[in-house]
């Protein structure tokens, strides 16, 4: 057994933390949060030069042959620094999907551009019924003259507002089992009929409504097999959920670090507030939550990286880590008191992220239902 990071991963972690602290200070985070784009093209290019976008792609597609665990290490640091932007949707939701199931032609066309920072991707899965079940995919793609015409409304789509291509999950066949008859299409975001509206969200992440109104795509734009898209979606969701857990671990660690530092410095009643048992217990609870989240996330990331079955562990990790992030940021707020309730303070940025992270890819109740099912209940 080896539960530690490799030397290369430790290096990646340190490099990523230093890079993000320097290149993406909180001032920029706030600026990007406020902007409609939600990312900085300049920073995006610098990240690409670090090799981050192609980290998990093979060399022949412009990548550096890293594995899923390496990506987890990087995402943890992005969570620590709450890096805004379309990295998650481009690499985890888009790039890795194409890598796993795309045609050779698609891989050759898209992955090098993703790796070089030239292309932003987005995954349009959820719809107004806001669920991650196959039955909820109502957007239709109908075959017509060797092409497909897509109609439907996708909601809560991450970073579609800046995406060059959108992977659209659509229904191509009505079947008794809703998991049959789903197909993924790579849609040029500039296609006629694609309309994107930015939503205003708590976490200031750039979630969108994307309406597909008679959008025509060619047969070649299908990712994987026609009607066989749902297993791909499930695989994407599984990896994305673990990836989100890594961001959560980073964010929760940052909230803990900030709160502990403040508890040491803030003096009331003639002593640092961190000397009061109530505050010490808060910090201890937070530390327990952060460590627990990290260990379960690493375990499940390793499983996914090794290609082992991980449905139960993924659900456990997401249920635990996402609620832990909420608890940790809430306690951090309590320790910061009134100063933490001001817009100028950084802690609310994490508190907002915690809620977004809890909701996306299924909240803790959704995960617990999976856990129960996996337990044979």
């Amino acid at each position, binding site marked *: 057994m080896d539960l530690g990071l490799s030397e290369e991963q430790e290096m990646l972690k340190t490099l990523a933390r230093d890079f993000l602290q320097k290149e993406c200070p909180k001032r920029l985070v706030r600026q990007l949060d406020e902007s409609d784009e939600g990312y900085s093209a300049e920073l995006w290019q610098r990240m690409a030069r670090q090799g981050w976008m192609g980290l998990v792609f093979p060399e022949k597609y412009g990548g550096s042959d890293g594995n899923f665990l390496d990506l987890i290490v990087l995402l943890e640091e992005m969570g620590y620094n709450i890096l805004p932007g379309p990295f998650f949707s481009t690499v985890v939701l888009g790039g890795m999907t194409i890598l796993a199931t795309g045609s050779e032609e698609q891989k050759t066309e898209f992955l090098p551009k993703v790796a070089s920072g030239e292309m932003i991707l987005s995954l349009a899965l959820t719809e107004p019924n*806001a669920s991650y079940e196959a039955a909820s995919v109502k957007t239709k793609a109908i075959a017509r003259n060797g092409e497909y015409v897509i109609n439907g409304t996708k909601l809560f789509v991450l970073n579609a507002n800046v995406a060059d291509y959108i992977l659209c999950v659509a229904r191509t066949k009505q079947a008794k089992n809703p998991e049959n008859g789903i197909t993924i299409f790579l849609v040029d975001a500039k296609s006629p009929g694609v309309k994107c509206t930015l*939503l*205003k*969200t708590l976490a200031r992440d750039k979630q969108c409504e994307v309406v597909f109104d008679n959008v025509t795509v060619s047969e070649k734009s299908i990712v994987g097999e026609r009607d066989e898209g749902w297993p791909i979606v499930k695989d994407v969701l599984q990896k994305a959920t673990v990836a989100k857990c890594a961001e959560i671990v980073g964010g929760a660690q940052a909230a803990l670090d900030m709160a502990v530092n403040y508890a040491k410095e803030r*003096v009331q*009643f003639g002593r640092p507030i961190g000397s009061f048992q109530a505050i010490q217990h808060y910090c201890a609870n937070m530390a327990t939550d952060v460590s627990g989240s990290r260990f379960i996330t690493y375990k499940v990331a390793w499983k996914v990286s090794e290609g082992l079955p991980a449905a139960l562990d993924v659900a456990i990790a997401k249920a635990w880590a996402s609620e832990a992030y909420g608890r940790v940021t*809430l306690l951090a707020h309590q320790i910061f008191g009134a100063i933490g309730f001001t817009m100028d303070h950084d802690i609310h940025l994490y508190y907002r992220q915690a809620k977004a992270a809890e909701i996306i890819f299924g909240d803790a109740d959704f995960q617990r239902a999976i856990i129960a099912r996996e337990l044979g209940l």
Partner: protein
Amino acid sequence: MDFTFSEREEAFRKEVEDFINNELPADWVEKNIYWPAGYGTLAQFEELSPEVEQFTHRLAEKGWLNISWPKEYGGAGLSYTEQAIFHERMSYYRAPAGEVATLIGGPTIMLFGSEEMKKEWLPKIARGEVRFWLAYSEPNAGSDLSSIQTRAIEDGDDLIISGQKIWGTAAHVSHYAWMAVKTDPTAPPHKGISLVIVDNTSPGVTIRPLVNICGFYSFNEVFFDNVRVPKKNVVGEMNKGWYYLMVALDFERLVIPIGSFRRTFEEIVQYARETKYNEQSVSQQLLIRNKLANIAIQIEIAYMFFWQTAWMLDKGLVPNIEASLLKLFTTELSQKLANTGMQVMGHYGQLEGTSKWSSLHGRVCLGYLDCISALVGAGTSEIQRNIIAMRGLGLPPK
């Protein structure tokens, strides 16, 4: 034992209800995005709208602006239970109901102010003409309030004040600071503090906005640079301010927005009923039902803390720990309500009121942020627990 309200009390409740329905603007519910027990979204602090002004004047005419005051000072002369009924109904409709001058300043002046001070201040407070802001906290005196450093030095008939206050809610739309200052730095912390009323327009007063995480301007940091204040503005005796301040806490005990919990809960329940996914309404989901039932239970308990406090006050008892329990329980409920609302609404909960696809005017999204302030403002949960443990249960302080 009898848990029913008297006929008189029921009639009064109806009178309050009718008044609110007649006087509150029809679109008030949409405009006021107040979250139960939160400090961040109090709409009337964003800007003093003419509607709020008008409503306040109508309250004053009715004698309800200063509802807790005795009749001789122009109050309504009501029992505590009736006051509680008033606050319950007002908060249910999220109506603006008084501020520092009517809730704290006036009653303190009544008890401890000189005749001259009463004559000068009480009538205009009663008419709703002056607004105070609470100038207690300082950057280094939050929970540890007695360690304030803002200094007031005597100079003939005046005091000269220098220092900084923070978290001055609505200072920018108020007229006077109701302020705690250090008048005897050699005395122990609790014995060298005085209360004084300071005109916001005095030379040397600088008010700077603090935008809260809800994106609202409700707080201020206020700097006092050699501000001259007439000594007649000192409330009661010099250096007795801490005592007055502690007594004044009694006046706020029933000023809990208890009704707004029920109102907001009802809105979330209605959302759960009306929202359907794949032909099934959200309220049919067992987990959601369970969460909502849990909140219903706690709202009921909170109401009992509330009525208990009013009843004790009417009996002449001092609801010391009950008041802390009420504050602690309701503010923590504020957070639970926000979290439950978020869970009921799922993805839609994270949408701000102005976003496409948002529901309930974005109230829950904002409430999720605002509820942070409930556990921090007016005595943190930790301080409330200390009070319950030490004053209430007699546990040793060290």
